[in-house]
């Protein structure tokens, strides 16, 4: 994330750890329809987190992000098994893969891919 303006973000898959790090107040009644394929509910579509609901449980960088890491080509990556799950991103023809095992350890990768500054988050 080299500057505020270039701060673009790839939301990949989000571990719901996020919901654990914050405390969101309030409850809403939910309409249930266990037999239907599509189930609508009655709450608001979005419940923003208030600043005063945040509790820090780890210091900054306790989970170190990877910033502009080195990559391998597909042929060089012989220790990555075909069955491993990865997050893939393609921007302007620049394809990158992020194994979930690495994302689990670091949670965020900041890099420039295909001319855009992105954060891959897990």
């Amino acid at each position, binding site marked *: 994330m080299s500057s*505020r303006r270039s701060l673009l973000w790839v939301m990949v898959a989000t*571990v719901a750890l996020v919901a*654990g790090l*914050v405390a969101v107040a309030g409850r809403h009644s939910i309409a249930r329809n266990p037999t239907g394929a599509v189930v609508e509910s009655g709450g608001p*579509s979005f419940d923003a*987190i208030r600043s005063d609901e945040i509790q820090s449980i780890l210091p900054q960088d306790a989970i170190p992000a990877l910033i502009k890491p080195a990559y391998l080509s*597909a042929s060089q990556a012989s220790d*990555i098994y075909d069955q491993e799950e990865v997050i893939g991103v393609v921007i302007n023809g620049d394809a990158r893969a992020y194994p979930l095992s690495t994302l689990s350890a*670091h949670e965020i990768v900041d890099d420039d891919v295909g001319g855009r500054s992105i954060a891959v988050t897990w």
Partner: protein
Amino acid sequence: MYDHETSSLWSHLTGTAIQGPLSGSQLTVLPATQTRWGAWKTAYPATRVLPHDYAGQRDEYARYYAGGDAGILGRKRADSRLPPKDLVIGVRVMDLPKAYWLDSVVNAKVINDTFENLPLVLLATSDESASVYERNLNGQTLTFEAVGSTVHDHETGSTWEPVTGKAIAGPLAGQSLTPVPATTSFWFGWFDFFPGTALYK
């Protein structure tokens, strides 16, 4: 998460700054694909990949994935439509949220849907992941179906590749569907942020 430049705090799940100088700012959410490495490198042979050197010695969350705990500080909201730690694929169309139960997507391999007037298709990209695409192409709405291990559209009979969203055979060969940014999340994480979410299961 926080940014080094301003120490603002951001939500992973929404991409919104919620505390600090950038509070209220919104990051652009880009589409990404989850699939297996074998499928990804077949689709994109020139891809580069993060090596395992960076990974920790063990998965710090292995117990968390396997256990019943939902959230580090406990749950503040409940929604029994699914078990809290079932995985969903979440999308937002016109700022309205909808979640698709990952198990149902993986079992069906293909789900055609229309949400807020936007025709969508979810295509399984492995037995534990899926991608979301718009199913309008050149003014035509396509309807997809799984045929064996491949995906076809009813209207033209073209064959589609789930990982790339591209037609690889048939009249539409070479054409691409538009990917829809989507978030894989535990159900409890998604409904905490989007309590009014629709759910497909």
